[in-house]
């Protein structure tokens, strides 16, 4: 009697585990104000759930590293990464693939912004007069807010940012960078050009107090990355279906929240330049 009960229980547990397709979880690097991110990705979750016919959940995290770790730990299966975080994540999870990127992402760039008290004006290169000012990056793990600005600073001055500026900080995200340079907490900052343009368009920044003084050359940035073992879990062809769903996202409201004008296919090799720069700067081994 007892044995039958135990067997029955075991069987129930087993079938339960097999039948219920695990929830498909995705996350994103917290590169902007959280309210905006939540709005954006809740819409995406609803959209993907509709398209993929499986339960989809968005999990917000507090740092770039936490995004990579959750992806690596298979606690999320899909992520909207930046260039650097995507390269790191794919290195840590063999078989994972870059599925899609924004139309703007192959030619992304960073803006250097300055508080008006510095008197700096837009120029074709970073002027020598930025020396010994205070400067803030975005997050430590950001491509457009850390890696690329640092790379171009090193290229321009031949020194590390710590030696160029009197103080170097990490604001945490691109929205904070704008706020800190606008308030004068830092005199200079570097950030994602898309976030800047969106903030200006929405009237969230006082352009009499802070303005763009230089833009970097272009580089590949954001992309959707999926773990490699998804077909085995969610059924044959699942990865393709995810990719298709992302590519055929045309709802202007969804796209505007990124903000991107659409999504195009991406491959791991597209981000090779980012990997090389990260190695050169010492952010990758």
């Amino acid at each position: 009697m007892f044995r039958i009960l135990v067997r029955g229980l075991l069987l129930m547990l087993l079938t339960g585990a097999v039948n219920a397709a695990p929830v498909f979880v995705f996350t994103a690097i917290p590169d902007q104000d959280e309210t905006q991110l939540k709005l954006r990705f809740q819409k995406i979750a609803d959209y993907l759930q509709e398209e993929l016919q499986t339960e989809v959940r968005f999990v917000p995290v507090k740092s770039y590293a936490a995004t990579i770790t959750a992806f690596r730990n298979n606690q999320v299966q899909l992520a909207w990464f930046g260039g650097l975080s995507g390269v790191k994540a794919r290195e840590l999870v063999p078989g994972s693939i870059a599925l899609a990127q924004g139309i703007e992402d192959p030619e992304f760039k960073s803006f250097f912004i300055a508080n008006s008290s510095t008197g700096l004006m837009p120029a074709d290169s970073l002027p020598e007069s930025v020396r010994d000012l205070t400067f803030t990056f975005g997050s430590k793990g950001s491509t457009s807010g850390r890696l690329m600005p640092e790379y171009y600073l090193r290229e321009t001055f031949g020194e590390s940012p710590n030696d160029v500026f009197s103080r170097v900080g990490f604001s945490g995200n691109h929205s904070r960078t704008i706020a800190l340079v606008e308030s004068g907490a830092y005199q200079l900052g570097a950030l994602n050009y898309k976030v800047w343009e969106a903030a200006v368009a929405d009237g969230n920044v006082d352009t009499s107090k802070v303005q763009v003084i230089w833009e970097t050359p272009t580089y590949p940035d954001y992309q959707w990355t999926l773990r490699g073992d998804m077909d085995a879990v969610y059924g044959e062809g699942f990865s393709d279906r995810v990719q298709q769903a992302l590519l055929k996202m045309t709802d202007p409201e969804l796209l505007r929240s990124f903000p991107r004008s659409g999504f195009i296919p991406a491959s791991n090799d597209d981000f090779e330049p980012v990997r090389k720069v990260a190695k050169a700067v010492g952010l990758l081994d």
Partner: protein
Amino acid sequence: MRFTKAMAIPTYRWPRGVRTGLWFLLIALCCVPFADLEVSSLDPWTDLGRLLQGFISPQLMEPTLVIEALLATLAFAFAGVALAVVCGFLLALAFHHPLMRGFCALMRSVHELFWALIFLQFFGLHPLTGLLAIAVPYSGIFARMFAEILDQVPKQPGYALPARSGYLSALFYTRLPLAWPHLVSYASYRLECGIRSSAILGFVGLPTLGYYLESSFSQGYYPEVAALLILFYLLVATKKLWLRRWTLPVFIIGSPFFMGEGMPIIWGNVWRFFSQDIVPSPLRGSDPTWQSFADWSSNILLEQALPGIWNTLILSQIALAVTGIFALCLFPLISRHCFSAAGRMPGHILLVIARSTPEYLLAYILLQLLGPSMLPAVIALAIHNGALIGYLTGRNSNEIQLRLSAPERRVDRYCYELLPRTYPAFLSFMLYRWEVIMRETAILGILGIQTIGFFVDSAIQEIRFDVALLLIVIAAMMNIMVDMIARRIQQNVSR
């Protein structure tokens, strides 16, 4: 020669305790030139004004979210502290063993936020991360305190036991009943600390109050920040009302249900963390050489550990001195020898608010207002710890009976009666707090001040857990050393 000798006046030597205090003050003053104490924000007053305005018109964000966050904050605190009480008590029974002592010292020398960052790497955002982040360091703290309390229990009742009574009988029939009230009161004090720790864990992503505080703050939604802070103060201040003997089991049993669901644990990740991630990267390859390992470690030591240790020391010594000054200025506010019962009320409120605000949160707020330098950190550490020590010293001063000849004027009474008589207690609180301040200083690096926590955070952001762990161990060693020095000084002073 003989002449001068005969004329020599007997020199006055300051009491040992006073000299110790002055030495600490001198060290702090020597640290000041090396510290970065600049106010770098152009206009700190506007932001401060906006924050205060927020307090005048607080605005609650979505109530269900707030209630969930409040419950999660309590849940992690209760479950974590309860688990730590049990583990700490068991560890306390074996505390006389040097190995066990070292083990407990290691557990408590690592800050709960560092523990959380470690557990996050393999448990992910699972309730277990928050639970253990509180339970592990608190177990170490409980082990030491419980062992000390059990040791101080009078030995006489034990002699009355029958000759062949076992260890457990002696424990349960003689030591435990005598120690019980002290154990309970200490555990209750720790629960309050647990609520603070739990709130702070939100800053790294757990669903407690800190999570929403951080996001509202970083977006400049000050009315929401104010509402959350007010709620937090109310929660701590009303503890006596909702925490009763009969509600305690309800809270502890109920807590696992309010920690949020998080993400499932995958045990392979745990194994990978211990077998690969924390192994120094040069030793991970197929043919590790000592040369590469030596390069790796010397590089970390020179580039990260040394600057981190230096800044941590500088900042914590200055903070310690300012804390002491704050405490000495604050304690008369709640001393019955200085103010009437009604007059002490504002002081009490001020001290409760200041000491129940976690220093991490204070530093975060001040950093936003004053800009990034050591100054906000010093102020934050001094406000929180100064209020705590001021409270303890004030309570101590209430226990002393004034001499009949004690001065009437309040200032004289403070200088010539209260200060000298409470000073020994004050100094021992300070010495005890030294290690705590050091530990907090290290953690404030996560906010961007370049103490050792800054480098730990950077290593974690770069997914270099081997580096992060090495730096955390170095921070732990610093704390253990400071703890040992503090105890040595304490013994010297009270000799």
